[in-house]
């Protein structure tokens, strides 16, 4: 929502945008594609529908392309974890998504229609129940194909969710608390 950006003190949002763009990767590969989040120096999280092959290409903010291998995918939860060669970029900060409130300002970074690392802003719309019985973060925020797998963040720049779907013009994101549990479960036993 451009109106919100206009109403915002730009330097602050620009700093957040800059930081989020650093941790937003581009994922391409067989039958999939979209965005991802640099979760750890050697881990990327994204949607399962974005990382559909066991090996995918990951584009970093400095334009480098690296190979990634799929460690875990949960099609039902639509989450995937990728291993990448260690990178220097500091990984994303995340926060407790349960503290998010309706009306709070949020921003998303992704590659809508291939426009790399585009920032969009809006507000939290609600927390509808998902198929799995959990909750979505629903945001009044303009997303497009290419945003999938990318970060939804609060005004401190911390990731609160992974943008996953668009329904009725609203963005649906998986809360980052669910992502954290998925990563913890998937990374167990992985050296």
């Amino acid at each position, binding site marked *: 929502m451009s*109106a919100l950006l206009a*109403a915002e003190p730009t330097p602050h949002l620009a700093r957040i945008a800059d930081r989020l763009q650093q941790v937003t990767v581009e994922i391409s590969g067989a039958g999939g594609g979209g965005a991802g989040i640099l979760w750890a120096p050697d881990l990327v999280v994204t949607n399962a529908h974005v990382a559909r092959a066991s090996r995918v290409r990951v584009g970093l903010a400095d334009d480098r392309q690296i190979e990634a291998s799929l460690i875990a995918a949960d099609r039902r939860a639509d989450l995937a974890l990728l291993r990448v060669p260690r990178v220097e970029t500091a990984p994303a900060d995340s926060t407790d998504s349960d503290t998010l*409130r*309706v*009306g*709070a300002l949020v921003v998303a970074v992704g590659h809508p229609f291939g426009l790399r690392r585009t920032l969009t802003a809006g*507000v939290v719309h*609600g927390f509808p129940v998902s198929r799995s019985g959990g909750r979505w973060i629903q945001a009044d925020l303009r997303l497009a194909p290419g945003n999938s797998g990318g970060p939804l963040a609060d*005004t401190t720049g911390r990731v609160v969710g992974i943008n996953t779907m668009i329904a009725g*013009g609203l963005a649906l994101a998986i809360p980052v608390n669910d992502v954290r549990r998925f990563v913890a479960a998937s990374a167990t036993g992985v050296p």
Partner: protein
Amino acid sequence: MTTAVDLSNALAGAVERAAGSLFAVHGRPRLPSTGVHWRAGLIVTASHTVEPDREVTLTAPDGRTLSAQVAGRDPGLDIAVLRAEVAGMPTADVHDDGELRVGHLVLALGTGPRASAGIISALDVRGGRQREPGAMLAVDLTLYPGFSGGPLVDVLGHIVGITTSGASRHLQCAVRASAVTRLTEYVVRGGRIPRAYLGVGTQPVVLPNDLRERLKLTQRTAVIVVNVASDSPAAAAGVVIGDVIVSISGHAITEPGDLVAVLQPDRVGHTVATSIVRGGEPRQMQVTVGERPSRG
């Protein structure tokens, strides 16, 4: 560094404060709309979301179901005022909306609560069926299904209007809080919102250029009377079928909807100067506006 965080917290706080006075209004099949507890016992919603002759129920913020009666409607502003036993429930923090400016950040809310954000895009929606200047604002935000009748909230959490997607085909609109309060005051004082009534049926008509030039009219269209109800204010004033109504009290009448817009509740009992054209000649008539019997 904290400004955006403060703004975000202010918006979330505004939603939280307003949410306590929101009701789901079940006045049409399927999709409920949103209502605001405007003053003790009176819930305001969008008129188009409450069908006539239908039992209306409300779902309170605490989940309770209550029955409600339509106390009055203003179809021109798309506002309905409902009456319900809501003792003890908080009323909305309705605020003097004179300070609203184009570009101000606002939220629209639905029950849940659900939120949508944007800006005030115009302070005065002209054309269509709008009447008192400034009663209807245009907002640049998305009114999601079920939002109609819900509050327009500023960043301080004050309720500054009621949103409706039913007032205009092209714009998202909000009725100013001051106009909504005026309507609720009719209900408080007289138990209803009076519906002004002339007793004419009309059709739009294009005014010939030579007639416009001769009568110095800028409007291209007016309305022609095709029906006059017996014993109506129009009949009493001498209006006959075929009269072309050009203006009422100085407001141009270019389509039948303009009559609805001019006939505000406070016109009831007052005499309005009506300019007509009969047989190609202008005439002034004095019509005493009556009140339409309410059908709920």
